[in-house]
């Protein structure tokens, strides 16, 4: 009996796999073509720089997850821009940062006939299919903060070039530790696209002669989880007695690290810099745990992304290299290679200027 049952189960499993393959075999290609056709058509349309920004555009923001202060700020920036162009703003998103739930939201949005979807990808590939479908349904796709594969969107609004970040961070830490000693990096999740890109470039940057005395000993991952980052910092300091400085290019990580340092014997001795929001870091900058850290303005990022989306939807730009568009108070921007628009160099915060910022 049971053997026969097992057989039956095994059999079904196999037949099912076969089915999947079978369905894969037939007509998969046509699907693919249609998908890219749609996307391609939009992209290859001619841009008309003088086209006015349409009114009443439906622009939706889909962050990695709602409940994340960073994205809340960014989305508010976007909202400001959308109201400026007299569009309808909407923010939706999953409560946990997972690609799969982002997909179902993208589906929902294209279902609702959005003109522009501005999103930050939890996974560069996972949401591509959905985005392409949305594109096919006539939506313009703008990504910000974390990009997808270029072919899945028209514009990626980059907070700052990875190069910019790398240079900035290395420069900061070097100044703080006096140009020599061991440093470590406390990153977010191990498969966060932008984080890894930055870290790569930081390694390049460190090869430069002026940083020759600085040694990067390890990269730790705090998974953008406060407690984990806290423990990882603690681990770093124990495993590397001579550690002089830590770079944490993630808002969660840098805050946790700062908190650990401020409560420990290493306060002030081990330098910390990274990317953090003034509100989180204000205390630690004031109590001397942190000399200086950097960040772009998430609000501006959202603001720019919204404008880029509006420009796309109005036919001002197509996402082709060289297209130019005006982004309200931020002035004019030019679309770079692969449809990347760069916000600009990050702002550095320290004792003197931190109180001027509220986000």
């Amino acid at each position, binding site marked *: 009996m049971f053997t026969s049952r097992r057989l039956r189960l095994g059999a079904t499993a196999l037949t099912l796999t076969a089915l999947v393959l079978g369905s894969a075999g037939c007509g998969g290609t046509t699907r693919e073509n249609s998908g890219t056709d749609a996307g391609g058509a939009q992209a290859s349309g001619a841009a008309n720089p003088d086209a006015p920004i349409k009114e009443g555009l439906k622009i939706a923001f889909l962050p990695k997850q709602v409940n*994340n*202060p960073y994205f809340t700020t960014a989305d508010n920036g976007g909202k400001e821009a959308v109201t400026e162009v007299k569009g309808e703003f909407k923010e939706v998103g999953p409560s*946990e940062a997972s690609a799969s739930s982002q997909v179902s939201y993208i589906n929902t949005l294209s279902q609702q006939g959005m003109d522009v979807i501005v999103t930050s990808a939890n996974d560069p590939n996972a949401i591509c299919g959905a985005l392409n479908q949305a594109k096919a349904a006539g939506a313009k796709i703008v990504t910000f903060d974390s990009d997808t594969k270029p072919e899945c969107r028209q514009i990626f609004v980059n907070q700052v070039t990875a190069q910019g970040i790398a240079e900035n961070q290395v420069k900061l830490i070097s100044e703080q530790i006096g140009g020599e000693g061991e440093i470590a990096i406390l990153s977010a999740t191990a498969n966060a696209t932008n984080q890894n890109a930055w870290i790569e470039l930081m390694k390049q940057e460190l090869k430069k002669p002026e940083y020759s005395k600085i040694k990067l000993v390890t990269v730790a991952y705090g998974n953008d989880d406060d407690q984990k980052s806290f423990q990882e910092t*603690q*681990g770093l300091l124990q*495993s590397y007695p001579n550690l002089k400085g830590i770079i944490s290019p993630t808002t969660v990580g840098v805050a946790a690290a700062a908190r650990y340092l401020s*409560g420990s014997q290493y306060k002030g001795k081990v330098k910390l810099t990274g990317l953090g929001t003034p*509100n*989180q870091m204000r205390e630690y900058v004031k109590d001397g745990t942190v000399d200086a850290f950097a960040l772009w303005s998430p609000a501006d990022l959202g603001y720019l992304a919204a404008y880029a989306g509006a420009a796309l939807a109005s036919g001002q730009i197509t996402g082709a290299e060289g297209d130019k568009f005006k982004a309200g108070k931020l002035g004019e921007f030019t679309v770079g290679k692969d449809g990347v628009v760069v916000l600009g160099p990050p702002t550095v915060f320290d004792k003197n200027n931190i109180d001027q910022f509220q986000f």
Partner: protein
Amino acid sequence: MSLTDTGVTERIANTSPPDAGRPRRRLTERLLAVRELSLLLALGALILVTMLHNDRFLSSQSIKDLLLGCAILVILAVGQTLVIITRNVDLSVGSILGLVAFATGELFLAAPGTPWPAALLLGVALGAVCGAVNGGLIAVAKVPALVITLGTLYAFRGIDYYWAAGQQINAADMPRSFLRLGNQTLLGVPVLFLVALVVVAAAGFYLHSYRSGRELYAIGSEPAAARLSGVPVGRRVFAVFVASGALAGLAGVLYAARFGTLDAAAGTGLELQVVAAAVVGGVAIFGGSGSVFGAALGAVLLTTIGSSLAVLRIDPFWQQAVVGALILAAIGLDRLLAARMAARLRGRSARGA
């Protein structure tokens, strides 16, 4: 393993109760000792290995970090133990902690002047209320705790998210005195850990030497019999969930004090660690036996694993796997002991267990 064994797993899966009378307590005594001893050994071995790799692991600083790290988990584990002993489980503790932690932050935002003891009390109260919701649904509607607390795990977290709506509370928003509570030490021992110790001691003493405490074991051991011997089962279970909620609330406030930065996601997925701590600590998942001391040790062990992995520079991804393996090992050990004892008892009386 014979079929009947698996047929009646949960009856066998228990070890013996922690308290057996003075005169002849060898057997039960030993079984208990085995469990707590093996935990201590594991802990010792772990620390030793880590130290050999890096002597700073036992520096006063990192010991402080360790104690600080485990305090919150210990408190939650105690609450969970109370619940599990009565043959229930509370999966909503993580969400309650998150909710309370955020509420504490909000409190300080709304009324910056609030003295921290008041915040503490309010937090505990809020936790107790959440616990009462669980307990009410379970004790009154006669619905399995697993399901209810699975539901409230969603619900409480949802309320938390809804309330927070993406906003974050930062250390700067909370009074220094309160934050100090999180990092301050007394004679080199973190205050948080002292609080945890008090909780453990109190709960342990209560379970061991008070009638209502023993009744919790009775309920978990044989609910029907408990009812017949006049134990107010419904009331006790309800109370236990309120207690678990209150402890989660306490943990939440301490969490706020310790971590300073709070968003709605605080304590997500913690319930798994808490159950793990209790089970690893020898609390039989099907009720009736186990001690808060064991659970506390379990919590300490889990935390130590966490930080020593970080120190050993082992891929942090291994941590979760290790926790899982530990749970399996722990319940496996319980099963072994139970089987041994069953055999012994069969020897003792003509009829087999």
